[in-house]
């Protein structure tokens, strides 16, 4: 099971899904209309490390976070 968390202003509860890589996650999220804007401007972290490619296998218990545009300070 993979947990997907949506951070900051993305008003969406976490998902628990059975996937084996990030490409599968992209496909699932692209089918959710309210996610369209966030998919285009959000970064992705796997186990709290930001990734820049979808070529990544996932294992049971991994945590994925979606990080929309930031503005600290």
């Amino acid at each position, binding site marked *: 099971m993979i947990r997907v968390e949506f951070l900051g202003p993305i008003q969406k509860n976490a998902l628990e899904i059975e996937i084996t890589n990030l490409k599968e996650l992209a496909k699932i999220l692209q089918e959710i209309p309210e996610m369209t804007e966030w998919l285009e401007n959000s970064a992705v972290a796997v186990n709290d490390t930001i990734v820049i490619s979808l070529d990544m296998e996932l294992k049971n218990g991994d945590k994925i976070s979606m990080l929309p545009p930031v503005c*600290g300070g």
Partner: protein
Amino acid sequence: MLNIYDGALDVPKILKDWYKEESTSNYGAYIPFVGTVRDENGIDGLSFDIYEPILENWFNVWQAKAKAKGAIIKMAHARGDVLLHESSYISCVFSPKRRVALEFIDEFVEDFKASAPIWKYDLINGKRVYALDRSTAIKGSGILGVK
């Protein structure tokens, strides 16, 4: 040192505490940056969400960069609401000589704005309004949207 506080920062106390912590560490320069919420665009204040695990990782990378130059950094940020003229962010660099600290605080704060996982909201009539137009997409954003 990275500290997250609920609500506005106590600027005099934090700056004084940091000074005391390093007063005998033989640093020649102490350069602080204090961010204050300005009265503009009709807001009542700002509000912040923070994702601490990635913020800590990000901060540790910068601390290692500072260490390589013989310097250290400290940072404090508010979580939740911060009203007008209060402070939401303080960071500083201590270094043996001023040039390193002056240059480092600039690089550090710029990357903080672009990369630190903190989300800002305007407080308007008691509601939080995400400040998307002032926010920056983290490097690598958008990969899940590619078809």
